[in-house]
């Protein structure tokens, strides 16, 4: 059995003396989709940044495919995991196609230019996020949701075994939220990718994720299959707000008080 795509052991994360995460343990394997839940400021982005190697853990270990995140050479890491940041702003114009092609960067040798294969990949990725026909549009003219989908397309062409996404659907409308999350689930199921995404919509989390990682303001961490983690009492404790869990239309829904 190969090493898990992402594995935390007794992980400790601290920012400016504040402990955000204590004693985090989990193993994310290929084919699993994890939602990362927690209130604002609980450390969701901090954890993802640590997994991407933007910062180091203050204790414990975090392993990417069996090797500590800090030990990965940047270019190799970029072929092992990809990351969608929460915010990005574009200062310069560029076509949607150019932005999506940048996702292939880790796979290029230094002097290589994009060829037909890369264009095919990029077109397929744009199709997957419902942006077919947007190739020549300037990214500065896109709406927030369209920009987010273009960034997702760039992530898909990066084609890494592990996808880490910080609020991938925050700017998307109903239809595209479902479309994107459905695509992530399919990547996990048919291409054995591992996925971890943060989301504030508990209904979407329960519907699409197989596992959940719940961060609390007390720095404790709950982890496991979605049904086991997303209980009324655990959610209420983490968010400080009463939540009722109901079954309707064949799904699990969460109704805040």
């Amino acid at each position, binding site marked *: 059995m190969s090493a898990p795509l992402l594995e935390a052991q007794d992980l400790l994360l601290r920012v400016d003396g504040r402990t955000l995460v204590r004693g985090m343990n989990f193993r994310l394997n290929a084919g699993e989709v994890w939602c990362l839940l927690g209130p604002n400021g609980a450390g969701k982005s901090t954890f993802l940044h640590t997994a991407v190697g933007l910062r180091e853990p203050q204790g414990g270990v975090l392993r990417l495919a069996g090797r500590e995140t800090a030990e990965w050479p940047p270019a190799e890491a970029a072929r092992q995991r990809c990351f969608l940041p929460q915010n990005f702003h574009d200062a310069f114009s560029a076509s949607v196609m*150019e932005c999506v092609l940048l996702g292939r960067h880790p796979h290029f040798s230094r002097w290589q230019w994009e060829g037909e294969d890369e264009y095919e990949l990029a077109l397929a990725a744009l199709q997957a996020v419902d942006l077919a026909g947007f190739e020549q549009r300037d990214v500065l003219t896109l709406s927030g949701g369209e920009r987010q989908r273009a960034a997702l397309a760039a992530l898909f062409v990066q084609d890494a075994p592990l996808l880490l996404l910080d609020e991938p659907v925050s700017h998307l409308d109903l239809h595209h939220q479902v479309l994107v999350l459905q695509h992530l689930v399919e990547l996990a199921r048919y291409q054995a990718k591992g996925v971890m995404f943060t989301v504030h919509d508990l209904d979407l989390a329960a519907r699409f994720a197989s596992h959940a990682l719940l961060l609390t303001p007390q720095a404790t961490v709950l982890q496991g299959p979605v049904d086991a983690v997303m209980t009324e009492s655990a959610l209420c404790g983490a968010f400080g707000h009463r939540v009722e869990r109901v079954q309707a239309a064949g799904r699990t829904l969460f109704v805040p008080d």
Partner: protein
Amino acid sequence: MRRALLIWLALAAAALAAFALALASGSARLPPLDLLQALLSPGDSIAGEIVTRLRLPRALAAFAVGGLLALAGALMQVLLRNPLADPYVLGLSGGAAVGALGAMLAGLGALAVDFAASAGALLAIALVFAFARGDLARRQVFGALDASPRLLLTGVIMAAGWGALITLMLTLAPEARLRGMLFWLMGDLNGVESWAPALLALVAVLALSYPSARELNVLLRGEVLAHALGVRVAPLRRKVYVLASVATAFAVTTAGAIGFVGLVVPHALRLALGNDQRMLLPASALAGGTLLLLADTAARSLLAPQQLPVGIITALIGVPAFMFLLTRRPGKAAA
């Protein structure tokens, strides 16, 4: 790739045409045939003397300085992720100017002025590097914060400080020296003899920055994204800063603080041809060189025998061109 080659070929052809124009214009009229003969076999003829000793060195210097400034501007715009950045935005020309004007004030010769200008430029580079150490020298990108605004702020404050020193020196300068000092500040290619260092610097900076061109494309989209795509962000930003600074220092030491080439050329090329640095870096060098060569030819022929500082010409072209680009932008975004 094919498109980039075509663009470079077209710009190279324009550069050659500009060279031909620069060598042909001047107070001594030279028909094309004489010009060609003078270039191929200078011999002892007066035409050969004029072309190879006067016009060619000045043309080469103009081309090299323009190329350096445009290349430095393109790199600075990537480093600061700001389309309005130019080679002087971090205060480098200010440092060089303080050095050069100080040497002029002391009544030193041309060589000492050049030397003092490079010393001032180096000091300015080192100061920004020291103050922005946290941004340029750290090994990791911490958090999601974009470091470029802080680097920009550091440079802008430094530039303001140099500006005050320059004004102080102009205030203290005796009348007789003032004219030379003003010409230096506007940028002037009159009497420039040494074109070789600037041209070598242009080739070197282009050769060193070009291998990182695709990484610069990624960096332009943000530091966090660049890191996620496997770019070593901090070393790359340091490299870009050093290369842009060296390019600017050579340009400023050769011809003074010529404005607008470094701002307008990369910006206009981006708008017209796209923002792929693999195409843009060589294109900037060629187009910047061509533009300054044409501007310098105009500077010495418009009011001949009176010579204008070339910086005036570039500013007179640059200001309206830039205003046009600025006002055009929102319209383009809405389209």
